């Protein structure tokens, strides 16, 4: 699969910290593209990567959690992170993938899937190197972003799983019942 990039470790700017013997917080991240931007999620939360499959729409649901898929006998919701991040919906291509994640939503471990335009590779990086995005420079809701790092002359945006998938608890996603 595309995300098994071999050049990962050598090209990574985080290597520098190791060489000087710094106390690095090295971690693995899965990077992927959405609307030409490169995003990353911690690899521990990634369960598997799947090709697109038939979805079952859920009537009366919120627009960013509107369908369900069958992942090996489990019913898993698809969370539209294009919508969450305010990105335009991309055209469908053969590179589209569903990334299945296990994340905590309100301290409840939840399996969910996100649709990405294409999966790139797994990189190893120092999590300290992700810089905080200046409030004005961000095109995405700041609470959904943990930081930005340079990688191979490219910017990688690290997403904040906790906030990205958090629904408003006071009302639930569907307003007070």
């Amino acid at each position, binding site marked *: 699969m595309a995300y098994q990039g071999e050049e990962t470790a050598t090209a990574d700017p985080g290597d520098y910290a190791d060489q000087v013997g710094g106390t690095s917080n090295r971690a693995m991240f899965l990077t992927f593209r959405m609307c030409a931007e490169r995003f990353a999620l911690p690899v521990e939360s990634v369960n598997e990567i799947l090709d697109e499959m*038939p*979805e*079952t*729409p*859920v*009537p*009366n*649901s*919120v627009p960013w*959690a509107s369908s*369900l*898929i*069958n992942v*090996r*006998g*489990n*019913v*898993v*919701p698809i*969370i539209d992170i294009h919508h969450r991040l305010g990105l335009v919906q991309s055209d469908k291509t053969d590179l589209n993938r569903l990334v299945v994640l296990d994340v905590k*939503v*309100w301290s*409840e471990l*939840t*399996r*969910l899937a996100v649709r990405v335009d294409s999966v790139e590779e797994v990189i190893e990086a120092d999590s300290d190197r992700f810089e905080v995005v200046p409030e004005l420079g961000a095109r995405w809701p700041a609470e959904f972003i943990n930081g930005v790092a340079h990688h191979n002359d490219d910017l990688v945006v690290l997403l904040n799983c906790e906030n990205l998938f958090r*629904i408003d608890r006071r009302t*639930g*996603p*569907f307003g007070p*019942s």
Partner: protein
Amino acid sequence: MSATDAFLQETLEGLQSLEDTLLELEDTPSKDKIDAVFRTLHTIKGSGAMFGFVPLAEFTHHFESAFERVRNAEIELTSDLISTALEARDHMLSLLESNHDADLITTLQSSAKAVDLENRIRKFLTEEAQKSSSLAVTQPGRERPEAPQPKTFKIRYTPDPTSIKNGQRPDLLIDELDEMGDLQATIDASHIPLLSELDPHIMYLRWDVRLTTCATTEDIEGVFMFLDEHEYHVEKVHENPPKAALNKEKQPEPTQEPTTSKSAKPEKSATVRVPAARLDDLMDQLGELVIAQTRLEQIGTTSGDTETLAVSEELGRLITGLRDSTLAMRMLPIEVVFGKFRRVVRNLSEELAKDVALVTSGGDTELDKTVIDSLTEPLVHMIRNALDHGIETAETRAKTAKPVRATVGLVAEQSGSEVLIRVTDDGGGLDAEAIRMRAIDRGLLKAEDSPTLDSLHRLIFEPAFSTAQEVSSISGRGVGMDAVRRVVNDLRGSIDIDTKKGIGTTITLRLPVTLAIIEGFLVRVGDSIFVLPLSAVRECVEYSTVENERSSGRSMLRIRQELVPFIKLQDVFDIEGHPEKDRRVVIVGDGDARVGLVVDDVLGQHQTVIKTFSIFHRGIRGFAGSTILGNGQVALIVDVAALIKHAKDHATPKAREVA
């Protein structure tokens, strides 16, 4: 599961069976039951001390001593004693629950109730023996007066190396054995390594114990009940009569021994405790297996390969068997909660000064564990209600020539894929006029309304109708009849009321046997497939043939002289339908309420495993969950009760009259 967890669970179960046995003892005293009580107390005392539940163990010791006297027929088993025992059992439960909070324990132990309880127990301990027997003063627990000749046992105790980490206390075990009789223990220290290699967290010691006691092999094994079987070995030594000593070498066991060990052993391994989550996993995997088998069948059908089809059919048969056994594992007899109700009735009849007998039947009816767990509170409430509001006072009963002793019944029976649970009473029945007055008072009804008798009775389930605030000590646990209805709805069940003024009331809960699987009825709307619970489906009619009367935006169907409101699922779910000419209407019902659902097509029946929604979809009204169809597609399960409510809420005034 850690040893302490195992102890907690065993003790909770022990306390439960203690309560049941005590209540049974009151009705039908028997030696066996007294022995059972004594055994339970003895186990709790012994293992309690071992696991550091000292206050519990100490209290239990007194309790046990008192019961020792009952066992030896020194004091009589009076109703007073039973009451004390029941309270003592409750006290033990509190001690168990608050063991790790020292402050709480102190408060608990010094409370007036506890002191009173201890005094009462002491009274039983010192009460003069009813039989002039010299046995009366023997120290309880140490010697059993009526016991046969003491026997000698050889016990090899080899604690697991990790046992100290798990909180095992060999010293306490040995102490407990010591209490049983004459004990000689030898420590086998040959496994202790050099000091430099010694890990203080590892158990290196073993014990060889020689115990002469009147206790049975079972009793001795009871001391080790929280250990693994490989950690101990109990063997009877035969040496009391010289004859036996001679035979010792040649005859390994007397005939009696194998029978006792046989009867003890299977009991130990007859049940296996399994965390419920593992059963859920098993159920999920089974669901996947069903899907895989359906795929195989489809491959066979398309290719026309008979061999594939034969294998698939065989698989299907096996899966059905596997599914049935998996479901059976989740089943418990409803009997397990009946004991709780006996206690409720006993306490309440005392408190209300009403003489009431609880008659139960069908205790062996099996229900999914989850159903039983969530049903307990509502049933307690219904029984309270029956006693409090249903059963008349003794004077009233005398006037109406009813037997003084009233009867509250709790009946469970299986009927097809449903379990019916009935709570009956021979009291005064529901007073329709009183309900009507209160409903008007609470704004549930208008003075000019004239509802049917049944819908009038059903008002007792409305939240606003609850009488909880009035009878605080009895019904005041915040569980109104509306809570009963909510629980039953959540379990996808329904409630019927049958009441006759002056004769009594029967409230019937209809519940699905299992929550994990439902019989589904598949319908298509647009490109989506939805599952309706088959139990809610009343009938199907053709949409084109029904008379479609539109009255101010609301649609009604005329079915056999009756008007039934209908809704189009495509509108409710905002789906683009494919309106073909032969659409169908599925009439679904919840109790008396009925509503027609217009669908594009009816696809048939399908047994489905229910998957609960994730946090993202849990709040959506109209759905009860999702499921996976034979072709692997996800389908949504429709919550019929919610749709009926939706239809009612959107009803025009005119329609409401008919509904």
